[in-house]
């Protein structure tokens, strides 16, 4: 099961996943942009 440490998403972890997304062949650039836009809006929401 998860522990507290695993629950804590660091900026580095998040960015690593973003980089992995950018490298994915399975999704188009437009799809990647769409996902990233949504992620960014969550980070920036008040």
């Amino acid at each position, binding site marked *: *099961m*998860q522990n507290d440490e*695993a*629950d*804590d*998403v*660091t*900026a580095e*972890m*998040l*960015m*690593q*996943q*973003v*980089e*992995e*997304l*950018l*490298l*994915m062949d*399975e*999704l*188009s*650039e*437009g*799809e*990647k*942009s*769409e*996902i*990233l*836009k*949504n*992620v*960014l809006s*969550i*980070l*920036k*929401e008040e």
Partner: protein
Amino acid sequence: MEQVSEKGRNVQELLQRLPLNERATIIGQAATALAKELSEAAPTASAPKRAKAQAALNQGVAEKLISKAGGIFLGEEQLKELGIIGKGAIVPPVPQKFSKAFLAANHPVRGGKMAAHIILGFDPKTREWYCFEKSIVPGSLGTDGRGLSGPKQDDLLLDEKRKPKTVQGMKYTSPTDYHPIKSVLDNVIKLQLKHGVAVGNLPFYGVWGRTSDTENADRGCRVLLGLSNRDGSVVYNFFSAVFAVDGVGLLAGWN
């Protein structure tokens, strides 16, 4: 439906006028620019926001991949309505010992992608979870074989007589015993989800979908899977692994 501003529409129109390769370049640059913006926003965001952002990222990817695979991504409420999760669910939670072993046997490789070496299956007759070594499941394969350790998937495909290995502490079964699990898929079909169903959220995450484009189309269905957090957010997706199994397979687990 997403609201598109007038400015956005103008940009879209301009993009449409460009040749395809130039359009792709611009969109690609947009993704990179967004990633850069994210790298600036992430360190200052609160931990819960980062967790939410991570869940959104994973789910966004999962939804798109599932959609491409002909599946349908369903939210928690929809899954409850369909009786797939929650009280009286078709599939009960994965036993913890299985999920732990699943994580131990399946590891992230190359770019964070996961390679599955054991598969968890649910038998609706006994309502028990079973554990399989992936190689004993006839017809199991990765889409491109990337990120898989040990024998190449092609070898495994040809090796249906291979005896299953015991996974310590696990109940395992032979490929021929795998068929009852098909009724899980039948249940899904009965639910009139013709192209598959994504089982997300607690405590497991999986996707069923029928194949239509592989040599295994006549033998069964495809299974895509990821691992979910307790809150249902996806931890890992088997992005490159599409498993065609004889009947239906379900990969599951959580961390």
